[in-house]
């Protein structure tokens, strides 16, 4: 039997407890959780908050595609939870939650990493940083293209 999915774009605070609970499975020995949070600086500028803009319909389509691709790579038993915040967050606020569970740990680690790296390149989500000096800027990102997986091949380091 195939694993199950939860995809959402939320204007309410994201809950790690909900994510872990959703992917929990008696037949799975591992659950991996990625928590993206707002940090207090970017490119040397002190940041006080970030606003997230999301094209909900297409973002949810990309979450679905990423879950399908993850199961093709790491098995159809994966349980997958992907939720992104929409709106303004202060420092430390949770912008994205990804949880993946699997029978063994390697699959959930890899799938979780794959999903976050692909979201950064493929999901129509934007962030506007608000700086301590009162200025705000939309963050430079990755140009979208019309084809599928493009980015992830076990990168050593990414910073964005």
């Amino acid at each position, binding site marked *: 039997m195939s694993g199950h999915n939860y995809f959402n774009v939320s204007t309410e605070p994201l809950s790690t407890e909900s994510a872990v609970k959703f992917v929990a499975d008696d037949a799975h020995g591992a659950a991996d959780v990625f928590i*993206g949070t707002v940090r207090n600086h970017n490119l040397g500028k002190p940041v006080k908050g970030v606003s997230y803009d999301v*094209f909900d*319909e*297409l973002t949810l*389509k990309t979450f679905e595609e990423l879950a399908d691709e993850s199961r093709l790579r790491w098995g159809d038993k994966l349980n997958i939870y992907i939720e992104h915040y929409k709106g303004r967050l202060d420092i430390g606020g949770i912008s*994205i939650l990804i949880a993946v569970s699997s029978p063994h740990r390697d699959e959930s680690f890899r799938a979780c990493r794959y999903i976050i790296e692909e*979201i950064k390149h493929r999901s*129509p989500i*934007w962030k506007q940083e608000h700086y301590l000096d009162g200025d705000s800027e939309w963050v430079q990102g990755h*140009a979208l293209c019309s084809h599928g997986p493009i980015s992830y091949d076990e990168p050593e380091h990414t910073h964005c």
Partner: protein
Amino acid sequence: MNNHINLSIKMFGAFRKYYPGTLEITVPFGSSAQCIKSAIGIAIHEANPTFCDDELISKSALANQQRVLNDDEQITEHSSLAILPPVCGG
């Protein structure tokens, strides 16, 4: 026969500061996504002369609610589309 189509274009990310809301444009029937992006750039500039960012237009993609469109894809009916600047979720 009307050889033009009407498009509603949703704005996201960096475009919102130049044109909040939905942009309405009329383009020739069969216009490519690439041509429509150019028309969007011109329409935003007409509405807000501070907008003159050709690089933002060229790096952006046109999409419907299901998928991102190829630049050479032709639009042949009245549609609701979105202009998507480079993304940075997570």
